[in-house]
């Protein structure tokens, strides 16, 4: 779902990111980092607080679209399901964008 308007009048044009959009942003950062991203990279790349990042990473892991790899440091990568999801998302984004719709 597309986000609604900010409560604060001064920021009326800013929009909330939907949960779906945050998932996509996190997965995009991982994909951009050659499918191996550390939490700090994801945190900055997806513009999230630490607490929210941990929450979303757990949710994405539960959905089976990302996985934790590495032994010492936490490194996240997309699973095959995650890669397919991102490919489908890119197609949908490109289609919607051709009509001028944002997702």
């Amino acid at each position, binding site marked *: *779902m*597309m986000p609604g308007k900010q409560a604060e009048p001064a920021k009326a044009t800013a929009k909330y990111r939907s949960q*779906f959009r945050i998932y996509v942003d996190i997965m995009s950062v991982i994909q951009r980092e050659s499918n191996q991203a550390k939490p700090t990279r994801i945190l900055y790349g997806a513009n999230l607080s630490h607490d929210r990042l941990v929450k979303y990473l757990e949710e994405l892991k539960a959905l089976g679209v990302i996985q934790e790899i590495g032994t010492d440091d936490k490194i996240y990568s997309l699973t095959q399901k995650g890669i397919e999801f991102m490919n*489908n*998302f890119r*197609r*949908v984004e*490109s*289609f*919607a*964008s*051709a*009509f*001028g*719709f*944002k*997702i």
Partner: protein
Amino acid sequence: MPLASFFGFDSLMEFIAFVIAIGIANQALKGYRLAKERTLLYLNISFVLIGAGLLVDGLSSLIVLMAGARRGFLYLFAVGYSINFLAQLVGYGILVYAYIHQARNVNSTALLAAVPFLFFERNAVTELILIFLLIYIATQTWINYSMNKNSNSMLVFGAFASLSIAHVFFLIFTVAPIFFPFAQVAQLFGFLLLLAMLLRVNHPT
């Protein structure tokens, strides 16, 4: 143009456009299922309606053609055309609503009230309403293209510009029948541009 050729040509053009419209509707539905973005649902409903209208119109022309364009069957052509016209009006109306919904600058109830839900036969006034809707959509797609300079956006703009021109020809056709093939070709060209966009989205180079 002989009557049989007229109905045959009309039927063929409508069937091709129907297949493309359903392809667009299907892609929009896939997108809606993935992203749950409401504008994609509007796009889906819009093209399902446009496709259904084209199918009904194409079928009615085919039946008239198969019946040898006998006078008794000619009313079917008018029925098919009326249904197609209504479907297009509501379909393009929904698409206009989708653009306004995205811009969030108009009350949705006000817009719904503006979408007419009356049966009518082909005439200049209803064609003008369709042209108005299509020009609005073409303008929105032009703005989109001018902002992102993307080839797919250009194809969508070209498609709606071509559909607008097609309906201008359909309008002129009500007084000058010679414009009928031009209208059909312009409409087909518009749908072919949408097909090209669909293929590019699904098979990026």
